């Protein structure tokens, strides 16, 4: 029985997802501006990281490559720009783990448990 792939299992672990998000953020924003160590679930994209809208797109696209189950563009388009900018790193991590959990549940149903 084909189970969820390894990448999806990684996506269920909030700690691992946070590490991935941290690494990509440091790459997108530049490590001289943001220290990987300082990024946590409470970190706000706007207030703490002062992220630019185009950098958030780059973050989403890189996460998209890493977590194929998440439609980042579609998810972001359901929010107002103000909501997107007010997000925390934890909100993003939650979205990735929640959608991964939903996918695993769906696959379990399909494959009869």
């Amino acid at each position, binding site marked *: 029985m084909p189970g969820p792939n390894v990448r999806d299992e990684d996506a269920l672990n909030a700690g691992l997802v946070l590490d991935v998000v941290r690494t990509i953020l440091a790459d997108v924003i530049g490590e001289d501006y943001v220290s990987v160590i300082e990024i946590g679930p409470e970190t706000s994209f706007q207030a703490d990281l002062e992220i*630019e809208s*185009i950098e958030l797109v780059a973050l989403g*696209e890189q996460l998209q490559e890493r977590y194929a189950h998440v439609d980042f*563009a*579609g998810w*972001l*388009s359901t929010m107002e720009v103000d909501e997107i900018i007010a997000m925390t790193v934890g909100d993003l991590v939650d979205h990735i783990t929640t959608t991964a959990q939903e996918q695993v549940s769906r696959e379990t149903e399909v494959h009869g448990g």
Partner: protein
Amino acid sequence: MADLVVRGVRFNVVRLGPSAHAQQAPEVPPDPYRDGRRPVVFLHGLIMDNLSSFYYTMAPAVAAKTDTVLYDLRGHGLSERPMEGYRIEDGVDDLVGILDALGIDEPVHLVANSFGGTIALATALRRPERVAGMALIEAHPAFSGWGQEVIEDLLDLISGFDGPGIRDYLATEAPRTLRRMVKTCEELVIVSSMGEDLPASEPTDPDRLLAVACPTLLLYGENSDIIDRAFVLEESIAGSELVVVDGCSHALLMENPKEVERRVTAWLDEQARVALAEEIGAASR
């Protein structure tokens, strides 16, 4: 998201499409016009703008139905900022180069905002075989003298940064986003050749626009400061259709993104429906 090197410049390109997530949304009914659709390319505005203004608004809705490309123009967003190549003709060549690099050789629909519309109109004139149609939001046609006017306005804006205390504020407390915005503006307008290139670009005057043959949707805000261009474009371009949105200014895309999305996606549907009907008609003859 991928970097593409075109004409010696690294471009930030995002390609979205219907295939990636189609299987996740079984509730979405099949698209009756699918075979009539063309790829869509989004073109953003000048200086402060980048592909995110479409990525956050209508791009996902468009990408649900067709192959969709967004990119940061030369010098903008996360694309490279070379010191030259800012004539409108360069913008056309960059666009065609990106399409070539992506292997898109069929004509595309251009969806453009403001200065993106300047490039779209020039593309329809210079490379008509690459353009199936245009949805132009608050387009700035490059009428004679337009480039000079734009640069003078930008220089005025930049001279404002020299007001009392502003440089100090930018160097110390100003948010990173504002500092970056000022830097982008100064680098493009003063340091790069944009200041000379835009005024030296070949104009797209109303008499030349008579040659635009593709279907064109014109969207303008009721209170736009460039609404006069809307009427000139409507008169010059035979296949054009003008929609004026109530209560909006030149910032139409940001002020009423849902209405712009509704108008543009309905227009794209109509283009696909017509293309499909023509195809079926041709096949049955």
